[in-house]
């Protein structure tokens, strides 16, 4: 992960059984066209691969300088969210954040950056990242949509 070359505090990484897809440091899509007014982001590459290999996604991670947040889908019917933190002198801290209690199917990853743009005292400001959100959604046995999203600042 090339965090030092990125404007993002966290970059995502999707670990499939046979392939790992990593967010480009500048969030570029594999088919990036420099002259286009709009390009999809790296997340489109993840979505495209996931659409054909949904059962092969093992985990989706949000990787920061010293901390990593993981949506663990090793057992896709029972997603788990946890964090790992590098402390001083190589100490590691593993924290379970959430464990899904009901069996789910059609589990999908949720990832977005919560953004804010302001006009302050009449002056237009640059947009800024408020937080990075990751999680999952799926359908339980009763057909209800269940989702869990955590936001990392």
């Amino acid at each position, binding site marked *: 992960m090339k965090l030092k070359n990125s404007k993002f505090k966290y970059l995502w990484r999707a670990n499939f059984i046979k392939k790992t897809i990593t967010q480009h440091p500048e969030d570029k899509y594999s088919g990036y066209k420099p002259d286009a007014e709009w390009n999809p982001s790296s997340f489109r590459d993840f979505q495209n691969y996931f659409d054909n290999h949904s059962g092969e996604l093992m985990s989706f991670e949000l990787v920061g300088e010293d901390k990593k947040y993981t949506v663990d889908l090793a057992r896709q019917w029972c997603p788990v969210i946890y964090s790992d933190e590098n402390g001083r002198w190589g100490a590691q801290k593993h924290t379970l954040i959430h464990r899904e209690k009901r069996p789910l199917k059609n589990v999908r990853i949720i990832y977005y950056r919560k953004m*804010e743009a302001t006009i302050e005292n009449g002056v237009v400001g640059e947009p800024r990242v408020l937080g990075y959100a990751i999680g999952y959604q799926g359908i339980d046995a009763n057909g209800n949509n269940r989702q869990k999203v955590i936001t990392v600042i």
Partner: protein
Amino acid sequence: MAATTNWYEQNGTATGSPAHGTESSISSCDWKNVDDTTTSRASSPVLAGANSYSKYIYLKFSGTFNQISAVKFAHTAGTLGTGINLMGKVTSTYVTPSTSAMTGASDITSTTAVGSGASVLLGTSGPNDANPATSQTTTCYTQYIATQVQTTNAANAGDSGSVTLTIQYNEN
């Protein structure tokens, strides 16, 4: 890279179908007694007891993103002062700006957390898109955020206080 956001304002007589004004890219936005993007508020102040011209601004999203969604708008900080109310609405309909009280607007003088603010839809053809949606996966525009300052004779002379208007959205 990420989404590129640019603010725009439309001014002048509503023309076309759907109706629109003349578009200008903006780096500032003031309520004043003239319908343009260039005159300073000091040069064209709103007199106590009168209203400012209504203002139609919006955001355009381009650059690099997969999806923009969950857009919210609110007046999140600051106050304009005694006898000055801030009115606002989110709309896909452009009406020629005037100093008449803006119809359908809510009083947004008090601050609100943006998460509890007004929902804003996104259109691909412009802020007046006939079929705006809660999310878009290509270049898109917010609906118009229409605002107006309405004053009473109790308003103090001189410059008003300053406020912060906030747009919040999700991007991936």
